[in-house]
């Protein structure tokens, strides 16, 4: 093969791209993995992983004014922090525009957001895949739970997901590693919730991609809870710790950082892609690479951005736009509302180790007989902890204050925050804004997305139900809150190139193939037809592995 020819090209090296590279190389394909940003090497690239607070100039407490100026998007929430600043895209190099406020937090480097993700890993349930059909929002998923269930198992076994088996329809069990433990307060509250709600509501350990046993070449979690800096033990799933070494081991992978894919090259006679064109981020020159199949895994909006820039001589709005749905049906998870309070009676217990996951309360609204004034539902994430002392009204300063603050508080605190499903609305969309360009002269995206009535109604339940559950469990001083939510803050961008049953109203078919170019696959968040209320990354892993299996079998049959 010539230097620029491969069997497959994978665009993006985050969770989805890493999986695509692993699966395709393990099936014998020569793969080129393109990443727009710099390389971060496993372990040696995690420059802040083992630093203590005092080793950071501002102790990670508050961003500098310079950082606030340099990161107009990232500054809107917690990700703007000196401890992990180099694991986020530089906003000013790659701006975007907003018709309505949208927080877009991106990881432009090898591994993408697989390095900084929250690691919560849940399966969609059978109702999630039927919801659009049943309540009429969006379009019907072209697949059902049974189609993806084996791929969930496959992904879980390789990634290493710790979790407890609960036997709940609403949150299907998987192939888990032994679960991390609830702490003493969480156990007590979980017990009381179960009793009070007669088994219809549950508080369980948050299922996460953290190892509780050694796995392949990776060490089990050391309970440092510094995951987002990169883990020198390989204790959580990331491209670097898991999929990239597996792909490298085959000898079939070429990784090319600093490669911004600007378009898919399309042959209109064969109705197929022939490869991709890139802009080299360093020398700013254009290069072309050829391949039999292309996997777009550039993160939801960027995969769609590539499609919008492709085959525009045939479809002015880009490859996949013939349906009128490309760029539409943007989804995220809305959150930042819930409740918290204090728990008395556990002052003789404390915590040892920092568990990198919390508790999870699976959805209980609008399932079985429950019926609300909105559709779909939400789950809660949270946890109990024992903070440092603060009950010091009489010790304003001095030795007494110091002593009070150097011991744990008498009481524990517990909090749960809702994560709600956002419906796929056609008018929630991203479009190309050719009037604004990035540092490489490429047009940027414009965001026009909002949450609507269904989500606002759901948020009221998300607050009130949290309060009710905590109070029913004997938690004291329970206060509910809604901090307000701007779309994108969930960092779960989904939709914009949805899967469907009909090329007239969807961009992808049931195997993640672009209807208008069957050798182009989109398997990241862009493909999602509905959002469920659970964290989506495990579904991208399963979806990518499934699509890669299909792609290779089609390739062998000569269909691609």
């Amino acid at each position, binding site marked *: 093969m010539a230097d620029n020819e491969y069997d497959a090209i994978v665009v993006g090296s985050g969770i989805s791209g890493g999986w695509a590279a692993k699966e395709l190389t393990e099936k014998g394909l020569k793969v080129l993995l393109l990443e727009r940003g710099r390389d971060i090497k496993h372990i040696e690239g995690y420059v802040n992983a083992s630093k203590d607070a005092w080793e950071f100039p501002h102790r990670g407490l508050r961003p500098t004014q310079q950082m606030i100026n340099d990161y107009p998007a990232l500054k809107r929430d917690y990700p*703007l922090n000196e401890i992990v600043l180099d694991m986020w895209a530089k906003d000013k190099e790659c701006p975007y525009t907003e018709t309505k406020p949208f927080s877009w937090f991106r990881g432009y480097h090898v591994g993408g957001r697989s390095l900084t993700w929250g690691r919560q890993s849940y399966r969609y349930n059978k109702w999630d895949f039927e919801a659009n059909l049943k309540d009429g929002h969006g379009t019907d998923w072209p697949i059902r739970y049974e189609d993806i269930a084996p791929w969930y198992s496959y992904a879980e076994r390789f990634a290493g997901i710790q979790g407890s088996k609960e036997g709940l329809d609403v949150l299907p069990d998987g192939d888990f590693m032994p679960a991390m433990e609830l702490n003493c307060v969480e156990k007590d509250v979980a017990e009381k919730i179960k009793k009070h709600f007669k088994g219809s509501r549950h508080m369980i350990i948050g299922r996460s991609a953290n190892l509780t046993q050694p796995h392949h070449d990776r060490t089990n979690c050391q309970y440092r809870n510094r995951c987002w800096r990169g883990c020198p033990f390989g204790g959580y799933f990331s491209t670097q710790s898991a999929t990239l070494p597996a792909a490298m081991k085959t000898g079939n992978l070429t990784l090319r950082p600093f490669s911004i894919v600007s378009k898919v090259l399309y042959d209109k006679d064969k109705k197929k892609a022939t490869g991709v064109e890139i802009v080299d981020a360093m020398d700013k020159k254009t290069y072309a690479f050829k391949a039999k199949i292309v996997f777009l895994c550039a993160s939801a909006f960027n995969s769609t951005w590539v499609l919008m820039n492709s085959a525009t001589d045939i479809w002015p709005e880009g490859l996949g736009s013939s349906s009128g749905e490309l760029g539409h049906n943007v989804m995220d998870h809305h959150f930042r509302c819930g409740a918290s309070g204090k728990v008395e009676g556990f002052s003789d217990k404390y915590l040892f180790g920092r568990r990198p996951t919390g508790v999870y309360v699976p959805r209980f609204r609008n399932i079985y007989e429950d019926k609300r004034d909105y559709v779909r539902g939400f789950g809660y994430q949270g946890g109990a902890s024992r903070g440092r002392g603060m009950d010091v009204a009489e010790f304003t300063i001095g030795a007494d204050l110091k002593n009070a603050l150097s011991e744990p508080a008498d009481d524990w605190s517990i909090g749960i925050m809702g994560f709600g499903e956002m419906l796929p609305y056609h008018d929630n969309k991203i479009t190309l804004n050719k009037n604004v360009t990035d540092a490489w002269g490429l047009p940027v995206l414009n965001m026009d997305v909002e949450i609507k009535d269904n989500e606002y109604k759901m948020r009221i339940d998300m607050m009130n139900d949290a309060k009710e559950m905590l109070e029913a469990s004997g938690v004291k001083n329970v206060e509910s809150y809604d901090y307000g939510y701007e779309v994108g803050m969930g960092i779960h961008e989904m939709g914009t190139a949805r899967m469907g049953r009909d090329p007239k109203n969807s961009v992808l078919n049931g195997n993640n193939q672009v209807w208008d170019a069957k050798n182009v696959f989109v398997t990241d968040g862009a493909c999602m037809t509905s959002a469920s209320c659970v964290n989506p990354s495990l579904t991208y892993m399963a979806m990518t592995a499934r699509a890669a299996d299909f792609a290779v079998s089609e390739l062998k049959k000569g269909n691609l």
Partner: protein
Amino acid sequence: MDRRELLKKIAILTGGVVIGGEVFLSGCKTGADAGLTFTPSTLALLDEIGETIIPATTTPGAKAAAIGEFMKIMVTDCYTVAEQKAFMDGLKSLEDICTKMHSKGFMDCSPQQRHDLLVSLEKEAKAFNDKKNEAEKEQKEIAKAAKQPFTGAPPHYYTLLKQLTLWGFFTSKTGMTETLRHNPVPGKFDGAFPYKKGDKAWAE
């Protein structure tokens, strides 16, 4: 304790004003010239103020944690211009009040005199912040309804001093390893770890 919890607790301790809570929404540029001058005597003053709030006991205090240097870095790099001004003007006010109360500057006062001064400032700051919060309540509601960010005026300067002292001390090497218990690699998890009164808290 994670960063959010730490910030929240310190906010409550220092009068319920979350300094920096608004910075995620604001983006004021720190002017090169906001009257910032940290001379060796300013740093010495900050060290002694910090030491009065968190003194050496059986373990080192804020001075040993180089709290003056920490304050200088935070005020210079992280504060908005308005906060910088409140902080620098506040140091002058503190000296004025000290002279009125004890007929000498802070550096010349005894530990007890310093303590008494800061206790009186704590009361003044509480009244100041309560009044400020009350006055800004309406604007805050309006901003919230319009989904606009709200940046209030800085709190009382003593609140800034106390907050920086607590932030800096409990994230310093001595604070984390000598006053608190530090365990960077726990290796295991126990969610019902025995605790008896007097055991130190974990540093993170």
